[in-house]
């Protein structure tokens, strides 16, 4: 049998490694991914402040896949043909090579099972003037983060000469997600400027589409702190106040000009924020992958949702916020259209957001899209791999493993400064990721499983996880014992 995995990020790489481990030499595991590298995305924050080099957070996939016996094609998926065509009876994916030696060449890669783990497309074009090469920076990939560090270094040099600098960090579209990454970057910039005693020359502003700070696209959370059950709103505002970071919330950035971001507020006002340095997270969408049936008819809308993420076993019925349930969220990540097709990590279409949808009086939706952080992405990749391996070995379509984001928790360590003795990290855990208002009517989550702590220990944990996850991804001894 052939299992084809599209994407070698946290989710796809995890899926491919467990598929090969379970299926051995008798079956083929093929990975298609446009970059020759695996990158540990969370550490891009440290690349963006010059504390790590890209080489420290990435490695070449070919070497690892050769050792594991996985076939690697450095290419991008262009179209999926789940029913094959006139000449090919099995499903196949048309891929286009991106490697230097084969650039532009296309190939039809056949499969018995398909795992789509292509993650997000960074949709800078959704906001006029946004993104690297235009007016803002990004830390979403190691190349973007390297550019961000170059620009930050230039700002630091100006400050060393006594020039003031305005930093604008946050979300670059009315519905961006990944607030956590931008939050980390704002705190790391603040830490680096304090370290250089330049903070008095900096004006750092957080701009976000969140209704309240600390929403992080998951409707916020509550943590036990100092004898109180405290919302992450207070936690986040406190960290910002301590670091002299101002904030603009309920803001949908719709256009960026050199040094000026235009945004609409939830109240319907149009405003601007000036900057010398801006890192704004773009909107995410799925990739432009088309789908065709046996006759060549376009079935993209059957396989993918309008946001281009792949439809899975979620309940996509439109309903008001009050009627949302954890059962809306997928369990097996199997495509309802084709049972041998799965989507994992960010590539699956969520049934709806987690934060409450909000609209300005002008009709603009201003609220975060749902995040799918590293841990759920890894766990989903693993359970899909285990289920497919089980089906191949036993010939039965059954899903022994499930992973519903309304039942699983997640841990996230927010870096707030890189130093072994003075560094800081905020350790956050939530359980479950998607609030379950039936089970936990007061806070939506298990307050005993929710942690919010800031300290040097958080930095140690984040650094430890960096090395641990790279060890696991490289397939070094006992990699499979390490959790996702």
């Amino acid at each position: 049998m052939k299992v084809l995995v599209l994407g070698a990020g946290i989710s796809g790489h995890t899926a491919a490694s467990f598929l090969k481990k379970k299926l051995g030499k008798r079956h083929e595991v093929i990975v298609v991914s446009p970059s020759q590298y695996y990158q540990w995305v969370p550490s891009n924050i440290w690349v963006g402040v010059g504390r790590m080099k890209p080489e420290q957070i990435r490695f070449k996939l070919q070497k690892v896949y050769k050792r594991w016996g996985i076939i690697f094609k450095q290419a991008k998926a262009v179209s999926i043909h789940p029913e094959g065509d006139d000449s090919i009876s099995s499903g196949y994916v048309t891929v286009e090579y991106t490697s230097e030696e084969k650039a532009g060449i296309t190939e039809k890669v056949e499969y018995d099972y398909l795992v789509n783990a292509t993650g997000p497309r960074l949709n800078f074009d959704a906001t006029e003037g946004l993104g690297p090469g235009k007016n803002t920076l990004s830390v979403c990939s190691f190349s973007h983060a390297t550019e961000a560090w170059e620009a930050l270094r230039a700002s630091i040099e100006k400050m060393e000469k006594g020039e003031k600098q305005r930093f604008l960090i946050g979300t670059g579209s009315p519905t961006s997600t990944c607030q956590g990454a931008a939050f980390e970057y704002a705190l790391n910039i603040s830490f680096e400027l304090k370290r250089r005693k330049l903070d008095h020359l900096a004006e750092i502003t957080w701009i976000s589409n969140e209704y309240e700070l600390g929403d992080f696209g998951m409707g916020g959370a509550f943590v036990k702190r100092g004898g109180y059950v405290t919302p992450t709103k207070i936690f986040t505002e406190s960290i910002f106040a301590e670091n002299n970071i101002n904030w603009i919330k309920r803001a949908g950035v719709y256009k960026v000009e050199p040094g000026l971001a235009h945004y609409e507020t939830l109240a319907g006002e149009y405003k601007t924020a000036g900057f010398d340095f801006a890192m704004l997270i773009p909107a995410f969408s799925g990739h432009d992958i088309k789908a065709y049936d046996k006759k060549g008819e376009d079935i993209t809308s059957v396989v993918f949702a309008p946001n281009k993420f792949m439809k899975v076993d979620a309940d996509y019925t439109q309903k008001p916020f009050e009627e949302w349930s954890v059962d809306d969220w997928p369990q097996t990540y199997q495509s309802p259209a084709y049972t041998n097709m799965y989507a994992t990590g960010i590539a699956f279409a969520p049934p709806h957001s987690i934060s409450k949808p909000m609209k300005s009086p002008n009709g603009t939706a201003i609220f975060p899209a749902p995040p799918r952080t590293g841990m759920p992405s890894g766990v989903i990749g693993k359970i899909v791999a285990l289920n497919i391996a089980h089906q191949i070995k036993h010939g039965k379509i059954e899903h022994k493993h499930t992973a519903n984001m309304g039942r699983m928790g997640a841990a996230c360590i927010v870096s707030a400064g890189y130093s072994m003795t003075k560094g800081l990290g905020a350790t956050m855990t939530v359980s479950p990721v998607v609030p379950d208002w039936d089970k936990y009517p007061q806070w939506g989550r298990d307050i005993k499983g929710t942690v919010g702590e800031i300290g040097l220990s958080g930095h140690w944990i984040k650094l430890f996880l960096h090395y641990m996850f790279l060890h696991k991804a490289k397939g070094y001894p006992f990699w499979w014992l390490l959790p996702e």
Partner: protein
Amino acid sequence: MTDPKVIRAYKDEYYPPVPTAATKRMRTNIFIQLYKFLMLNYKIMRIVVKGHS
């Protein structure tokens, strides 16, 4: 020219609780943080184990 005087009162950033000097010291105290490192890893592992069931 001196910068205009900035009064934080009545601004959003005026209201949140901010840590005292003692709280800040505890955040980087090696002994306290070693204990927290172990405690937080335990709490994270509890969530991780639950997520993998």
